[in-house]
């Protein structure tokens, strides 16, 4: 990368002495060379954008694209571009491809653009072969190849013995096991939260306890095996309570939440809008408020947009036939910033690295330049115009968001939106 000078940018980094100050920043060869009130260098590329803010780069632990196998949902190339222009320099990429990412070859495939792009992909490997829940996949080899955790994505681990074995086995090499919290025999074919709303829609509902008994089960197994367990998506008040208690008991359990879960309750489904169909399902207002409080208090370790592109053929159909999921990279910053304000938002967008033991960044002279660039004060109504993804299935249309990301500097590369 050529030399870059970022002019008059506000630095948001609670770990830096420059936090909340407006500075010029000189970057050369991936390193922050100088931070000062005024830097001049005739050889450097100048980036001067009004109200530009910077923070250590953001990481989202649960992103899905589709390549290989579901390229019509999203390709790696356009997915990476979407992530970067949405402010994410690093993403955890789910193994929900076809074939499922359950070997080291798959892990390497997902990382093929890492050396040349401003966005770094950290693949998650499948926990079981073909994510079928029967036999463990080659976890060690995948970890060696770069997998940061193991998950069958949103396939619950039905057989408790598989989770037991996985948690024991992964301890040998510090692997992180994820378990999607849903008791499938209780949930059966249901696709929405069980409530007065589901009753009025004539849709079968998933009771909150279907999530909670699975978490109880998983925690009991974890207490027996030891090791580290990550519950990627919690959606109920009581699920959070269980995790809080387990943490207090000293278990190595962490959990995450999807941003849309912090925004909506299941009342938004009243017109069978398939854009609002997600998994875990949108729950009660009481659950939503508990999740927001869980994020604020820190019981929830990871916040993710749970980016999940779907084609029109998968979404624009009758409610029961529509696949769950929403894209989320493009709306993540604006949504969080509206809910939590800027400093907390930046902390949320960077803190998941701890769970996955990734390198953390800070904006200081001499440090590696891994930066997210954003305009936090822009108020707008989120629309298709804001979407970079190949598919447009966003839950956030019509929502008033605050702030837009415009790019990243990472891996000695600059990726910047045309303004």
């Amino acid at each position, binding site marked *: 990368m050529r030399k870059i000078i970022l002019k008059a940018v506000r630095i948001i980094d609670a770990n830096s002495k420059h936090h909340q100050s407006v500075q010029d920043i000189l970057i050369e060869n991936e390193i922050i060379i100088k931070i000062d009130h005024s830097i001049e260098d005739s050889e450097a590329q100048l980036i001067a954008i009004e109200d530009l803010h910077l923070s250590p780069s953001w990481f989202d632990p649960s992103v899905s694209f589709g390549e290989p196998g579901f390229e019509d949902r999203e390709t790696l190339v356009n997915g990476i571009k979407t992530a970067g222009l949405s402010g994410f320099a690093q993403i955890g990429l789910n193994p929900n491809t076809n074939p499922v990412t359950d070997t080291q070859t798959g892990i390497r495939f997902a990382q093929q653009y890492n050396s040349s792009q401003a966005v770094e992909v950290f693949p998650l490997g499948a926990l079981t072969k073909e994510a079928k829940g029967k036999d463990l996949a080659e976890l060690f080899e995948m970890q060696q190849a770069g997998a940061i955790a193991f998950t069958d994505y949103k396939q619950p681990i039905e057989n408790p013995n598989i989770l037991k074995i996985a948690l024991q086995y992964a301890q040998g090499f510090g692997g992180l096991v994820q378990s999607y919290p849903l008791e499938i025999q209780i949930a059966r*074919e249901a696709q929405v939260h069980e409530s*007065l709303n*589901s*009753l009025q*829609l004539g*849709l*079968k509902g998933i009771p909150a306890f279907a999530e909670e008994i699975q978490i109880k089960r998983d925690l009991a197994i974890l207490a027996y095996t030891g090791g580290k367990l990550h519950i990627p998506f919690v959606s109920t008040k009581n699920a959070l309570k269980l995790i809080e208690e387990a943490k207090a008991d000293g278990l190595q359990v962490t959990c995450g939440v999807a941003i849309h879960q912090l925004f909506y309750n299941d009342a938004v489904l009243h017109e069978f809008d398939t854009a609002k169909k997600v998994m875990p399902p949108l729950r009660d207002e009481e659950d939503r408020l508990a999740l927001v409080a869980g994020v604020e208090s820190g019981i929830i370790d990871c916040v993710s947009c749970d980016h999940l592109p779907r084609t029109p053929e998968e979404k624009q159909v*009758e409610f*029961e*036939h529509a696949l769950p999921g929403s894209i989320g990279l493009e709306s993540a910053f604006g949504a969080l910033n509206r809910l939590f304000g800027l400093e907390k938002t930046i902390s949320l967008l960077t803190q998941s690295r701890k769970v996955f033991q990734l390198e953390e960044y800070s904006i200081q002279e001499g440090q590696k330049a891994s930066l997210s660039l954003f305009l936090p004060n822009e108020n707008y109504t989120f629309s298709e115009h804001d979407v970079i993804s190949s598919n447009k299935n966003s839950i956030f249309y019509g929502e008033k968001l605050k702030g837009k990301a415009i790019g990243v500097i990472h891996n000695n590369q600059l990726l910047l939106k045309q303004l």
Partner: protein
Amino acid sequence: MSELSVNHLLGIKYLKKEDIELIFKTAKHFKEVINRPIKKVPSLRDVTIANLFFENSTRTRLSFELAEKRLSADVVNFSAASSSVKKGETLVDTVNNILAMKVDMVVMRHPNPGAGIFLSKQVDASIINAGDGAHEHPTQALLDAFSIQEELGDIGGKRVLIVGDILHSRVALSNIYALKKMDAKVMVCGPKTLIPKHLHKLGVKVETNLDKALAWCDVANMLRVQNERMDVNYFPSTKEYVKQFGLTKKRLEKLNKELVIMHPGPINRGVELSSELADSDQAIILDQVENGVAVRMAVIYLLAAKIKQL
């Protein structure tokens, strides 16, 4: 009120009390018409209606078809097994194909909840929901409420009991909406496995003892157990179900009152209702069928009036 507040009949949930009263007033007139020697009126001579049944139905389809023909509408029928029409694109395409032939109104039965609402957003025709999964079956609820009004003079304050498989029933949900809008008191009774967990939040009493429920009510609407919609056994055997929830003469003899007995059909004789009672004077099951035609004529007529304005 001289016209409906809605352009489609997608569910009772979307109707106002005044809409229901207007439909009843119109239905009363049409009931008189269909009892004349010449049962047909020329009201809808320039209206074409498509009956799209993506799920099996005999009674509802016949009732709609008869209602349409009594109004002199042109009628086309389409039936498809639910399995052959899996995707919404296909549904929209199917309907658009039919609409391209200049159809003004669509009567649709579909296995998916919300299918009618989905369609109403995609195509340019007036939609009547003839049953969408476990969501709503508005014309059934209207004809049930109309029959109660006819039998008892008024619905307001009357105690209506709905017995049986509430969980899988679109009839129950639509009935509850209609009866509550008309200020009736509603109770449901059945095994707890077949009563939705949050039903009481609709202002409905829940009872698991049929004798107690019968002692409370003025009208008992007996629903069919929908075995075809059950993914697991919600009760151990039909024999046990009948012992607890089957309506028999013996049960009624314990009461010091005459109940009105209703059933949306088809009846499983000897299961939810004994033959003896189904054929008794207390049962208004065949009146319901007759009223079904009149009420559907009213709904079609009133919605057609709104198309003409457009």
